[in-house]
């Protein structure tokens, strides 16, 4: 299927994929450090296994970023 990840068109071999599997396929280093937005909605972390993506979906991997200094 064809989906968009972080604004880039991507061709995936798999016909069906959950968010959890997509994170694996895309080699996301630490999935706990990512918030996933699917077609404009944030997917609850507890539902990564249950949520399937389909053709033409728009996925955003939003990374947790700290930075600055400890206050």
């Amino acid at each position, binding site marked *: 299927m064809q989906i968009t990840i*972080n*604004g880039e068109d991507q061709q995936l071999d798999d016909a069906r994929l959950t968010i959890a599997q997509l994170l694996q396929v895309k080699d996301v280093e*630490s999935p*706990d*450090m990512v*918030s996933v*937005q699917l077609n*404009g*909605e*944030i997917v*609850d*972390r507890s539902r990564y296994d249950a949520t399937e993506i389909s053709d033409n979906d728009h996925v*955003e991997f*939003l*990374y*947790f*970023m*700290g*930075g*600055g*200094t*400890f*206050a």
Partner: protein
Amino acid sequence: MIDFTSEQLERYSRHILLQDVGVEGQAKLLGAKVLIVGAGGLGAPAALYLAAAGIGTIGIVDSDTVEISNLQRQVVHFTKDIDMPKVESAKEKMLAINPGIEVKTYQECLNADNIRAIIRDYDFVVDGTDNFPTKFLVNDACVMDNIPFSHGGILRFDGQTMTVVPGKSACYRCFFRKPPPPDAVPTCSQAGVLGAIAGMLGTIQAAEALKYVTEVGELLTDTLLSFNAKTMNFRKVTLQKQKNCPICGENPTVTELIDEEQALTCNLRQY
């Protein structure tokens, strides 16, 4: 309306020349109160620019002292300031740039017990903290007390920022529901950051504070701006306020401030 002295007219002439700012805008800046949380990589450039811009009252919170490893990016601190409290070091430079402002220092750690008493006095908050428990605490306190703020984060070659106007735009929890598990946060050896990225991000946050106060332009609300310094690609991801957000949604589950489990801050402290 403030009566500007001739020294002020000259000092702020490049603001006053801007049609969108003018003397009215500069008067708003001089009357504004902005709190900077963290006098580190993000807070340092924000502190310098906000002081230079003539924000009349600037608060700065940080419990740390200056270390030599800070100097690679925390440009408000100088080599001579090592071991000095960061808030004192920052205040000295801010007043050296602009003696016409007031700088209030808070040499303490923000926690669930003290945050609301501190932020209450301010119009806008710049979040320059490095750890997620404090980021969530700043979000939650600002949402509860209706204080707009700028979120900022950096990691290695990346940066991200968004502006939150509570009640109107998406908050940090709309995007990032809860802090990541402490053991998932990158460790000391893995993390690092290109110093100038802190400057890129901290100055965006300062610009958002100035835009908010002067009511110029469109804020980075409902928008997470991310950039990667290796490619210099900037991207905006939009997100509306979420109905199921744990704090600003319809059935909030976060109804009081709590100190989230503290990740080992040593790791992110390196930023």
